[in-house]
């Protein structure tokens, strides 16, 4: 007791001196969380493209399929055990398609719901294998003993919805895969626990023979390559690592045509997503299932608009009569989902929507974009780019009707500024054939050679952003150039990050093997 008494006195003295400088230290009311992250509902990227795997390249155009992807739970540090990453059982995940170009994307909706089964709550790690338990070689049954929790999902297709005051009314609702509950693919723990990770992935790619639909839900590597630190620092793009060009660089991160034409190096930016993983929901659907008339894509039915949303369940707040427990009322709101996040085009939420409106924007339908038109027209990022570039470079003046047309309207819509509908959708012309993986260029339709001349077709790559979006399209450079205007295009301004080191994945789900927890690393420029 002597020792402890002595220690206690020391603590008391230390405390007293700490208190003298900070009287009444510590908060003391019930501070419920306010500003929190919600990664399970956070959509980080959306991709929509005609599948470019060999099977689809080989198909006749009338038989081709389209892949739609939503990535959630962003920025996963691969080694983050013990529970790793999962989808959220309480979130409704939706991929929505507008196929009649009315801007209301209620024509075809794919809904994904997840459920987690904890098979061994006492296991100290969520996943074990290669030790007391055999390595994880199967998602279900023998070989899956190491998975103490298994997350499974259902897919439902909803068609022909009309929006009424009370909400959507849909004519058809089809549980796909015969209503079966499908396994997801768990996080890539490491080579001892999961020696054959891609064989688990193969088991997690589910094919519905009846509809020709394929789905996958599980972890993949992040392919979105961006100097996020620089872009979010008010697009203060990094030039300090670039070879200086007298009189030109810095301050503006302009590039030579040859630098910009190189799809195999990150010239000077820092890819903040290097070595990170995401959770992917991918669905591949025959084009004839997406067009408004069920026919192969043609000039009149071939363009669709895609967006994605996550919603959370409400719960009843009042419990009824004070003091009387009324359990049934707890889930009264169980069917009432409220949208908490949405995404279609990249970087809209991040770079266009003002901070104070982001939550509202995320809770709004993609077709209600009229209320945010000012943010598109008075593009704040354009002002920031002008400030960096200085008076020598001209960034187009507001109102930016070019931005409105690109992000909110179909090509064949009335271009006049007052005429809607305005709907923030990722638009995909499904008549454009897929580019084979070896010819995919990071700048897609804007690809050019070392002299700056556009790559001629048929070697060109018209099947990329802004015509839909593929996992390796360099949307950051294109968005910065669109925002900055013709001078930015002419000088190849970009974030200096163009590629993800794993390259292009030529097969469904078109995203690379996730970095495993044991061997993960994040690469800065110049690092091997």
């Amino acid at each position, binding site marked *: *007791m002597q020792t402890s008494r002595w220690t*206690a006195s020391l603590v*008391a003295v230390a*405390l007293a001196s700490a*208190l003298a400088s*900070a*009287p*009444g*230290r*510590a*908060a*003391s*009311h*019930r*501070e*419920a*969380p*306010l*500003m*929190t*992250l*919600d*990664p399970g*509902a*956070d959509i980080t990227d959306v991709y929509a493209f005609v599948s470019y795997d060999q099977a689809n390249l080989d198909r006749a155009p009338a038989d081709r399929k389209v892949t739609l992807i939503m990535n959630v739970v962003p920025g996963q540090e691969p080694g983050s055990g013990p529970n790793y990453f999962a989808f*959220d059982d*309480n979130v409704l995940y939706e991929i929505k398609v507008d196929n009649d170009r009315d801007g209301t994307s209620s024509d075809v909706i794919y809904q994904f719901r997840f459920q987690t089964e904890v098979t061994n709550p006492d296991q100290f790690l969520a996943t074990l294998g290669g030790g007391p338990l055999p390595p994880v070689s199967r998602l279900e049954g023998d070989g899956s003993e190491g998975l103490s929790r298994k997350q499974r999902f259902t897919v439902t297709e909803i068609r022909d919805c009309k929006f009424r005051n009370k909400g959507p009314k849909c004519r058809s609702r089809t549980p796909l895969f015969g209503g079966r509950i499908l396994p997801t693919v768990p996080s890539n723990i490491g080579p001892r626990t999961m020696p054959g990770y891609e064989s688990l992935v193969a088991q997690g790619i589910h094919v519905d023979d009846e509809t020709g639909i394929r789905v996958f839900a599980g972890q993949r590597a992040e392919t979105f390559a961006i100097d996020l630190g620089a872009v979010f*620092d*008010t697009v*203060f793009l990094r030039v300090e690592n670039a070879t200086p060009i007298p*009189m*030109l660089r*810095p*301050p*503006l991160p302009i590039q030579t045509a040859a630098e910009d034409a190189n799809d195999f190096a990150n010239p000077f930016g820092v890819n903040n997503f290097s070595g990170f993983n995401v959770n992917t929901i991918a669905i591949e659907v025959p084009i004839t299932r997406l067009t408004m008339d069920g026919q192969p894509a043609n000039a009149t039915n071939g363009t669709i608009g895609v967006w994605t949303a996550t919603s*959370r369940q409400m*719960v*009843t*707040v*009042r*419990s009824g009569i*004070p*003091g*009387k*427990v009324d*359990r049934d*009322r*707890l889930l009264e709101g169980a069917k009432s*989902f*409220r949208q908490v996040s949405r995404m279609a085009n990249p970087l809209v939420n991040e770079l266009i929507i003002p*901070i*104070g409106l982001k*939550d*509202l924007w995320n809770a709004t339908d993609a077709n209600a974009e009229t209320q945010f038109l000012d943010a598109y027209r008075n593009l704040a990022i354009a002002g*920031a780019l002008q*400030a960096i*570039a*200085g*008076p020598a*470079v001209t960034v187009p003046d507001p109102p930016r009707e070019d931005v409105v047309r690109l992000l909110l309207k179909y090509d064949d819509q009335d271009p006049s500024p007052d005429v809607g509908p305005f709907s923030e959708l990722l638009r995909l012309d499904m008549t454009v054939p897929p580019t084979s993986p070896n010819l995919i260029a990071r700048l897609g339709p804007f690809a050019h050679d070392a002299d700056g001349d556009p790559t001629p077709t048929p070697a060109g790559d018209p099947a990329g952003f802004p015509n839909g979006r593929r996992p390796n399209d360099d949307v950051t450079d294109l968005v910065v150039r669109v925002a900055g205007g013709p001078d930015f295009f002419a000088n190849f301004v970009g974030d200096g990050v163009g590629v993800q080191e794993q390259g292009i994945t030529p097969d469904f789900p078109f995203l690379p093997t996730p970095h495993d927890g044991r061997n993960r690393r994040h690469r800065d420029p110049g690092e091997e």
Partner: protein
Amino acid sequence: MPTLVPACRPGRALALALAGLLPVPALAAPSPADRAIAAAARRVQNGRALPDAYVELAAALMKKSRESADPADYRRAAAALDRAVALDPQHYGALRVRAWVLLGQHDFRGARAAAEQALAREPRDWWNYATLADALSELGEYDRATTAVERLMELRPGIAAYTRAAFVRALTGDRAGAIAILERAAAGSTGDAEGLAWTLVHLGHERFAGGELGAAALVYARALAALPEYHLALGGLARVRAAEGRFGEAIALYRRAVALVPAPDLVAALGDVHAAAGDADEAEEQYALVEQMGRLAAAAGSTHGRQLALFYADHDRQLPEALRLARQEAAMRGDIYSDDALAWALYRNGRFAEAARAAHRALRLGTPDAALHYHAGMIAAALGRPRRGAAHLRRALALNSHFDLLQAPTARDTLAALEAGLVLRTGNTAPHRPRPAADLPEPAARVASGGTS
């Protein structure tokens, strides 16, 4: 293109921009809040996107305050908001974050006003309903607070809405509902360590309030797994260990918590464990430290009036100061816990009739909280209402026989005495004067009809 002027020119002016706004960098690995502070500070330093950058810095500092429990972070956040407002008096972001800062500083009326102003500007921003609900519940306007939480739930279901809905459930007697909602909130907040840990700690508190010691300990351990060395979880787990009679473990846990955040209620609880373990000298040392904190707090202003008042009342020390603090808190707030602290301080000062009225207000929502019933029971007994006193004490012990290390035995002894028909004399009051019972409705009866689960 000709040479362009550099956009960023670091120098004295920029260093000044951040003067007094940043906390001393922690020695430990930076938390998400630390990184948010650094990112916002960089934006302020770069001199772009002001005043947004100042608002971002204020929000990051508020996030930090949740980890550090350091009121200096509130002052820094307020100063950052002042800079933003100086640049743009109409800045909406500054207004909505201001409500949050004022809540931290216990200016609940100011917080309500700021939230209402922000709400008038942007009635579709869920944030404003969260800050308004917090301010209203501290001010005791529970019905309006609940309506605000309902609106928050409609605009943005998620951890902010779930945790506040759970609070409404717990206050109004639906602890099972509160637990179910908190479990859902925890399931949906895996990416935010501090938010998850906070949610789990309050889940633990609800389990403890129901006397489920084992379940509470498990949840506190989950909180510590999410956020190691989280003072609230350490304190929660310490309380469970003390209730289980594992005093050594409890002392070690409280010491860790106190070393992180020297809050008077934690130091007092540490003293109580020593007292329960029979070490009166050590207990006295901790109690003396709480009193020292009280003196410093009185001199410098503090947000701990309620905890100090309860400490003084519980331990029969500085009873006039207990009453002064409890009255001051009650005037500033209006919630049931301020009424409860006032009731207990009045009781210890021998003012039983006033105490009974305050205790009645404290139970106006039918909250199934053992401490509220214990206080009400002791007050009723002192007023010569043995039947009601016994009912409240029975209820307190039925809710959680471990509700307080030192007070629970008193509750048991008093109940036994009441049941044996003995005349009750409290330790520090005038001789008990018999009075006719039942001139107030019996709050215990209303609550006891359906509150347990």
